[in-house]
């Protein structure tokens, strides 16, 4: 029954959306046309919560492992990623973008600091790493297809990748405004039903939390030693799981939401500041419903799996957190919810990936090739299209090679890299006239460099995969051989963004104070209309 309903609904969805995409297609003549996308409150806020698509499956699964501690991410994502971003950065970004005629994230940085190097470097960083975030979204959908249709993971993955490419060929990379609004409403309804039904199955909000507290003894010994004290008890301070949750997932993603290239591009494309203000309402509610529900339902899946299958969520999923939410929807939620969830996640993912590929293409074509290398708009158009194709290919390849439980980690990696490289020069550039070109370059290169050095030599997750430290020093990372009771041993769980972000800010301020200021006329133009 479930399988047939899933098949029928997905086939109908593909036909309807393919038709709408074909009808809504417009030519992408210039690189500017490729960048300017849908306007409107719903689209702005919906794409402002880009992280929602990774949150539903990836972070929901991570929350099933880490417990309710990850709700801090929801708190930060709404406070920082929606309220602070739109209110304190969105308007300034838009005004500065108008004054500087900037249309992309890299372009506003380049124009603000009068530096083609900054624009080109930022463009390359965005182009290089955005496929990783796209892969996280792709993997989530593939895991859902794997569980819903009972097919091997590679088959589900390639099927969705082909569907995605087909949609892009038929409909182009510009979305259709009203379909994105409908998608947003479908996802809203889907997550509201997921939350309500889960609490309903468990007898209410407080009884559900009490039941989850009661099964704390089911925490496996290995996880208990790593810091998990129960899904409602929080993580043990200073333990490995505490560092992973707080430094990578909560801090890295929560702060990184402030400087997401697609979000800044949306600020620049907003038709008015009133639209940004209204988007705070929609974005705040949308983020609460999508991410908040994922991070709430995730831990609660442990009770229902324990009651029905005799095992906690991570055991049911075979150690892969990315499969927990799809399995929950398939085995616990009513049969009619499965197709709705499939359509909702497919919609969200298609819209998000379309945006990411567009940003990747513009970063390579317009920002790096057209502006930084000086080949102008005509060359930029061709390379924008090349960049989009390369982004799609890179996303698919990353999706195939990333290990299990990769969605949350890949998302955290991308957000952390963006924060380390761009947060200081973006934030300070909007508020402080004293930031110089040299300060901007130093903070961007220094932040990114610090991040990579930490990954290569200290952060266990990346250093083991890269293997450079092993080759040079004969050890997985420089602190792995310390006693596990020492503070040094725990350093391998500290995310690079914790170190790189303060370094980036310090470099920006120190170097700016010691180097030549930008011309007053340029600064007056940048800050025209700001602060009045």
């Amino acid at each position: 029954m479930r399988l047939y309903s899933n098949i029928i609904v997905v086939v109908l969805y593909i036909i309807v959306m393919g038709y709408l995409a074909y009808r809504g297609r417009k030519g992408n003549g210039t690189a500017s046309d490729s960048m300017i996308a849908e306007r409107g409150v719903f689209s702005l806020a919906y794409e402002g919560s880009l992280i929602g698509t990774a949150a539903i499956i990836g972070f929901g699964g991570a929350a099933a492992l880490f417990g309710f501690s990850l709700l801090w991410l929801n708190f930060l994502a709404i406070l920082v990623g929606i309220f602070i971003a739109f209110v304190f950065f969105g308007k300034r970004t838009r005004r500065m973008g108008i004054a500087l005629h900037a249309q992309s994230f890299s372009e506003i940085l380049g124009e603000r600091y009068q530096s083609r190097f900054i624009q080109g470097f930022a463009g390359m960083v965005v182009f290089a790493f955005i496929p990783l975030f796209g892969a996280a979204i792709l993997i989530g959908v593939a895991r859902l297809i794997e569980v819903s249709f009972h097919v091997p993971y590679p088959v589900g993955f390639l099927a969705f990748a082909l569907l995605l490419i087909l949609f892009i060929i038929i409909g182009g990379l510009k979305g259709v405004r009203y379909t994105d609004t409908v998608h947003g409403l479908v996802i809203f309804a889907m997550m509201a039903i997921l939350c309500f039904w889960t609490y309903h199955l468990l007898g209410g909000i407080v009884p559900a939390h009490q039941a989850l507290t009661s099964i704390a003894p089911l925490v496996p010994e290995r996880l208990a030693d790593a810091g998990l004290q129960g899904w409602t008890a929080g993580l043990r301070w200073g333990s490995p799981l505490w560092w992973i949750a707080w430094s990578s997932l909560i801090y890295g993603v929560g702060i990184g939401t402030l400087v997401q290239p697609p979000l800044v591009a949306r600020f620049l494309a907003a038709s008015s500041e009133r639209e940004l203000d209204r988007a705070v309402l929609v974005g705040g509610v949308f983020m609460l419903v999508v991410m908040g529900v994922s991070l709430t339902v995730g831990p609660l899946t442990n009770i229902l799996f324990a009651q029905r299958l005799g095992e906690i969520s991570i055991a049911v999923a075979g150690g892969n957190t990315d499969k927990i939410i799809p399995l929950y929807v398939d085995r616990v939620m009513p049969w009619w919810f499965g197709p709705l969830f499939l359509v909702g996640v497919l919609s969200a993912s298609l819209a998000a990936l379309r945006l990411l590929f567009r940003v990747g293409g513009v970063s390579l074509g317009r920002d790096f090739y057209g502006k930084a290398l000086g080949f102008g708009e005509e060359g930029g158009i061709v390379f924008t299209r090349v960049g989009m194709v390369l982004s799609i290919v890179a996303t698919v390849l990353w999706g195939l090679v990333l290990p299990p439980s990769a969605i949350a980690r890949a998302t955290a990696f991308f957000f952390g890299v963006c924060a380390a490289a761009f947060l200081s020069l973006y934030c300070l550039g909007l508020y402080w006239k004293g930031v110089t070109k040299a300060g901007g370059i130093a903070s961007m290169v220094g932040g990114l460099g610090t991040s990579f050095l930490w990954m290569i030599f200290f952060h266990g997750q990346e250093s083991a995969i890269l293997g450079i430290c092993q080759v040079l020093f004969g050890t997985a990372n420089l602190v792995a051989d310390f006693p596990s009771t020492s503070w040094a041993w725990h350093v391998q769980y500290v995310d690079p963004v914790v170190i790189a972000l303060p370094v980036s800010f310090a470099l920006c301020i120190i170097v700016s104070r010691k180097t030549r200021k930008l011309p007053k006329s340029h600064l007056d133009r940048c800050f025209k209309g700001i602060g009045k």
Partner: protein
Amino acid sequence: MNEVTDILQRGWGLLGFASSEIAYVYIGSLLVALLCVIYGLLSWKEAVKAAFRRSRRPRRVRRVKKGKRPRRR
């Protein structure tokens, strides 16, 4: 107030959680979303008021100066 707190904390902690910190972030997430809603509604209200004021502004009337006859066309 103490009775309400006691009911909520029966052996499990606030809202059924083992840790108060979790309960506070649970409530805090709802409150910060409410902050976004209030901010959005206030800005929407300001926009509606501004639009209303623009529509109520009287139309300009051309005045004829004393001693001068209106031009014949």
